């Protein structure tokens, strides 16, 4: 079974090549690279909206990218039940599109945060099913606006429908706070109601090769193709 995937590149995306390499290595298949201005995406199993600073993060992170010409195709792909993964800036874009609840605002310490963080699975979905309960994953974050915010109603909804894919937690040998950026309820990643769209702040594509500080990022793609 050949797992097909595509990565969308926006002006200012800088983790697109990383996502392409990640998918190529773990699905053993070529990966399509689609420019934000195109209006058609061939049928694929997974689309990744990569990290970076699309449109410079100007106005709001992901705001202008969410209005790109390619977006209707992305929405169509998501609505048909196929997989859509937004990493970091990609998560911000998915929130701006409205495919995911809430919004990402500035880190509570007001500084860019570039370091390894620790997350664990909260609610299960096809992206994290191979991860064990209470298993701690070590994955880098690199963001200015990673602070997840949503209304109380939305938070209840996310919990009731079991849409919280990942939450920040403590890591071994580390005594820094579990919550690294002020996110409500330590939320690091959520899905939509159909659980086929995942947005997450950490970068799994930077944690899958044997020279990376951890290979915990493999589990996401492995879960999808299993």
């Amino acid at each position, binding site marked *: 079974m050949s797992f097909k995937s595509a990565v969308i590149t926006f*002006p200012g995306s800088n983790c697109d090549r990383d996502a392409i390499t990640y998918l190529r290595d773990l699905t053993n298949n070529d990966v399509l690279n689609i420019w934000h201005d195109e209006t058609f995406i061939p049928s694929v199993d997974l689309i990744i909206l990569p990290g970076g600073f699309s449109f410079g993060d100007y106005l709001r992170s992901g705001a202008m990218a969410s209005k790109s010409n390619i977006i209707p195709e992305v929405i169509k792909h998501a609505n048909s039940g196929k997989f859509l993964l937004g990493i970091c800036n990609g998560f911000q874009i998915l929130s701006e599109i409205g495919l995911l609840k809430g919004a990402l605002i500035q880190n509570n310490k007001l500084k860019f945060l570039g370091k390894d963080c620790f997350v664990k699975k909260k609610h299960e979905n096809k992206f994290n099913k191979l991860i064990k309960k209470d298993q701690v994953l070590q994955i880098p974050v690199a963001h200015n606006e990673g602070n997840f915010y949503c209304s109380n109603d939305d938070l209840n909804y996310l919990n009731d429908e079991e849409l919280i894919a990942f939450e920040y937690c403590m890591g071994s040998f580390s005594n820094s706070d579990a919550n690294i950026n002020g996110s409500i309820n330590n939320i690091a990643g959520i899905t939509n109601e159909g659980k086929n769209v995942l947005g997450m702040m950490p970068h799994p594509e930077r944690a899958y090769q044997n020279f990376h500080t951890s290979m915990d990022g493999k589990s996401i793609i492995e879960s999808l193709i299993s």
Partner: protein
Amino acid sequence: MNKELILQHGLTLDEFQIIEDCLKRDLTMEELGIFSAMWNEHCCYKTSKKWLKKLPTKNDIVIQGPGENAGIIDLEDNDGIAFKIESHNHPSYIEPFNGSATGVGGILRDIFTMGARPIATLDSIRFGEIKTDKTKYLLNGVVHGIGHYGNCIGIPNIGGECEFDKTYDYNNLVNAMAIGHVKKNAIFYSKPKTVGGLIVYIGSKTGKDGIHGASMASDVFSEDDEDDKRPSVQVGDPFMEKLLMEGCLELMSSGLIESMQDMGAAGITSSSVEMASKGNVGVLINLDKIPLRQPLTPYEILLSESQERMLAVIEKGNDEKVREILKKWQIDFEVIGEITNTKRVVFESQNKKIVDLPVNIIVDDAPEYDREFYLPKKRNKRKFDLSNLTLEKMISNLLNNLNHLEKSWVYNQYDSTVMGDTVKEPGQATGIVKLHDSQKVIGASTDCNPLYIRINPELGMIYTVAEAYRNLIASNIKPMAITNNLNFASPLDPNIMGEIVLSVNGLKISASQLDTPIVSGNVSLYNQTNDAPINPTPVIGMVGSNSNINKIVSNKFQSEGDIIISIGENIDPHKSPYFLQDQEIVEDINLYNELENINLEDEKITAKILMEISDNNLLQSCNDISRGGIFMTLMKMIQKNYGFNIKASNDFELFCEYKSGYVTTIKENNLKKVFALLDENKINYEEIGRVVIEEIKINSKNIDYFDIKDQYLNNFERIIN
């Protein structure tokens, strides 16, 4: 053209006379502006050229030495590595955020203008004493600015330095280094190939940014000047530069570009003059064609330092194809002139010649000075009273000194893993990235020991180069070449000029012996305010490689029970300058003893054997010994819950500096083989202890592991707030 005007433009009356004599006519204002920019220190190296010419710049692995936008070394298999370091000191003092951000922008352009995709950055930043609000403001601004620019473009920061010393109280330093990967058969130079080729402008519209920035780089500040200089700082747009970088790289791989030059200091002036000079051709440019943000006079256009702009030469007829590619990346593009065979630099506006100068007067006839210099005075031998230094006191002095503390407060504001190929992040001996889709890795480090260089510029420089060398060897990276940033005060003071001459000589000696030629670099002079010069701070950026990522050695403890071995010779505490300074024994610079001599042959042999030991997988970890001695090296090697249990014949030995010093950890059952190799090559070493869990023991004395670790990891943030 009166005396005032000439001096305001940073030229001496003598220099002006040379120009007038050559031209045999009056200069236009615009021409005066051109000389003001091209003949100042930053662009023509008039003070340092004589000495820089003596540096070793060639060997088998050098593809491109100094003289282009970046140096390039050969990694075999069609892989080249381009790299350079550059300063943005004065702008960072005036406006730290934008000053440092645009420094990063400038150095990245120097890399991709050669067809190399940037793959890593390092930053060497220096500030005054932290207790002033001004220093806190500068620290926050500089780190924020570097992060802002580098993170947005998406190039990982893999290392650097951050030093605090009162010598930088009024002159903070920001040196930005960048490394890029280029295919050897696709390197782009600034030399145009065909007469009749079109000169094209690519990138942001031109505004009033930085007018006279290149002259500002050479001006000495007086404290009242700040507000006057404020409008001249350039504001960068990293998003624009990301688009520019992608657009240019795509253009260069399309075969449509003949040559490329970035518009940095002195903007369109320096880039077009450089092109003409390199290609031995002339340039004819119509200033009316230049895309403008706001109305500008020809003078302003010529000197503007607006960011994110490139100059390129393309074959006639290719302009539409080029426009198409750049349109996708939303980049402005304009044909503004052509390459001529006149060997003259001609700028026109409104159909009139505004500037018409022979290229060679601007470049070849630029002044070169042989400034007077003094050698440092001989030092008396001294012994100091170390009786108050207990083990606890010595540890405490280091852990309350920003220079020794873990600096994640700084580098967590940088993205170190974007591009997915980072092997070693900041905070280790070497920053390392892998070449994409390859097993080859590149390692780099930036180093400087200003105190040593102040004591003895030539020998101090040799120590600095040796330390940079060791920082790479510690990770099993073979050192290959150097980029250097010479930061000094005013060369008009013969004492300072002596520091320049002698440290460049020290660089020559060490780079020759260690076979690490200098392939690029930058000079920043006049770093002083009123009468307070900075300590001599020639920063070395050392770059090397290993063809196999699996042979890289860690700089941190790997397992409990590993034996800790120190290598090298310790230096007597009375002769260890940083020990004496950091333990608050000596403050007056005149009281330090002479530096001990070091033997670079020993350095080379130790390095060779360590690499052999590493290649045979006998080394668990390795780190170099420098400021702070063995103790600080051991602290840097702690990760997870590892600690150390060590013995030394006296406590001072753990805090003094070393010659060719390393701390290594080795599995117990490999000791025999390792000792055999070290003995065979007469390398000095000592077994000092073991890696343990959650413990720090020195000469059987228990030091509170959790407290010390917490101080080391968190005191930096505590102190700066």
